[in-house]
């Protein structure tokens, strides 16, 4: 049925976000301590795929630029249609012509995270226009067994990620770790097509996730909104770093969801490789 439908590409325009703060510089961390949030959106330097989500003292920092749009409805479309692995090209500014790739999406008002080569990032500034060649929503790989859903992936990407059919009815995924549902945070109850799911993890919790890792969370169904469903599992790509805010943490953009009998997450704490700069040709 849907396997026969071919995906359509749509060029979208995003603007490199400028960070925004309110009248007070402070947010309050889980211990009640005020802090000034750094790295929450906008253009972040010094962070790359493969770095630990706890590598920097920042709030929701993502490796690259966050794209938004001034029109709220256009911003939602930018986020909903963009998929991990989509190509992006800088249209204005000193880095015009530079090519990057979508590495994730974030919720709330919506942001698309795009990775570029460090030399290109260094020449960019907030307000630069970036065109995203969006493609992937609605695409269903022909080999994907019935009962499993994929989302937020460029059609070319599944073949490059450590995801494959393992039996007639099942898919296997290499992941850094498998987490319990009680650690699902901000993003619950929100649409998986446009939000990430924050994982309530701190640096001392024994899960050293890295940006770009695949990670699984048990008993979460992410086909539509994300929420608890016993016996299911959702796999996502870690797209931003940790946060001092209670209920927040490293965020994963969901890519795969289904019953645990059909989605087999294989934890590989030391050898796992997920979304990398090499895979996206961002060296």
């Amino acid at each position: 049925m849907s396997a026969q439908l071919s995906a359509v590409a749509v060029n979208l325009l995003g603007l490199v976000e400028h960070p925004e703060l309110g009248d007070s510089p402070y947010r309050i961390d889980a211990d009640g301590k005020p802090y000034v949030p750094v790295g929450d959106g906008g253009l972040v330097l010094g962070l790359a795929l493969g770095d630990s989500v706890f590598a920097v003292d920042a709030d929701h920092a993502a490796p690259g630029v966050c794209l938004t749009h001034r029109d709220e409805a256009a911003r939602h479309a930018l986020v909903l249609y963009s998929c991990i692995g989509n190509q992006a090209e800088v249209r204005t500014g000193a880095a015009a012509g530079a090519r990057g790739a979508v590495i994730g999406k974030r919720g709330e008002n919506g942001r698309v995270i795009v990775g570029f080569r460090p030399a290109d990032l260094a020449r960019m500034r907030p307000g630069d226009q970036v065109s995203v060649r969006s493609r992937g929503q609605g695409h269903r790989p022909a080999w994907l067994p019935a009962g499993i859903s994929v989302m937020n992936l460029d059609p070319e990407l599944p073949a490059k990620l450590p995801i494959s059919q393992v039996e007639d009815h099942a898919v296997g995924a290499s992941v850094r770790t498998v987490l319990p549902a009680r650690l699902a945070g901000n993003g619950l109850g929100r649409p998986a097509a446009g939000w990430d799911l924050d994982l309530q993890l701190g640096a001392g919790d024994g899960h050293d996730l890295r940006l770009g890792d695949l990670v699984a969370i048990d008993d979460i169904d992410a086909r539509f909104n994300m929420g608890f469903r016993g016996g299911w599992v959702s796999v996502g790509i870690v797209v931003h770093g940790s946060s001092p805010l209670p209920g927040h943490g490293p965020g994963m953009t969901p890519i795969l969801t289904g019953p645990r009998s059909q989605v087999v997450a294989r934890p590989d704490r030391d050898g796992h490789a997920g979304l990398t700069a090499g895979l996206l040709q961002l060296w």
Partner: protein
Amino acid sequence: MKAASNADRLVSQVLTGEVWPPLADRHGYRVGPDGQPFVLPGMGGVTLGVHCGDQAAGYASDHLEPGASVRNADPAANMAVQFLTCVSNAVRVDSGPAAGAIGHVIGQHAYVLVDFTEAEAAQLTAGDAVTIIAVGQGLRLLEHQSIVVKNCSPGLLEAMPGGTMPDGRLEVHVAARIPAEAIGAGVGMISEYANTDLMGAYAGLGDDLSLGLESLRIGDIVAMADQDHRYGRGYRAGYLTIGVISTGQCMLFGHGPGPSSLLSGPADAFSLVDDPDANLASWFHRAGQDQR
């Protein structure tokens, strides 16, 4: 022994608001747990027929808000209304046929939720003006320094059974205990705004969605395991948050009946007593009763 507090040092602030209409968009449908599209009422306006003590789930409704849903039309004033209003604060109707009626706050949900008697609620509609006597933010328990009070009026603290135990713990009576897996939308938000939706209470849907919470009632005092809501809402092993169920049935996935946060601290600072009468209906929301 009732827990000692700084209640005598709190001031009341008079706030205004109006009954706010339900809001929808032209696309109508939202999506349920199995992908089912739905159009269901419950949020905003005046929701009739459901009060404290009634079942929270089991209605053809989404984000059921019992009674009147109140906001202030000015955005900044509205945040003051949402943040400063506390559970059991008195709310007076100031316009329309229900003018003079006194209701009581049962929680927040991006609206302030006010329970009235059914007869009073039947005369209310969107646009009716209300006055809120807000008191409770800043409330502290003098002998329970590790417990932070949230959205709880001195009147509610006084009415709730339990108190300071000889061993120094705070005894709290609860109608239900909530596992950490049930915490849904609202996690990661500040504790003074809206509430925490509980998953696992989708009456009539699949067993794999259930966490055994279908029998919660509006107004139930509940204990949420491994929840630290002292400075925002999040998971923390070994912590506990006491809340009051202020919203009911949801069809939207990842949402559900929701507690507003009242008390939060280390689990070992509390002593819980399971008590089916631990519900706002046991103490408030009788017509004309004036509560701080």
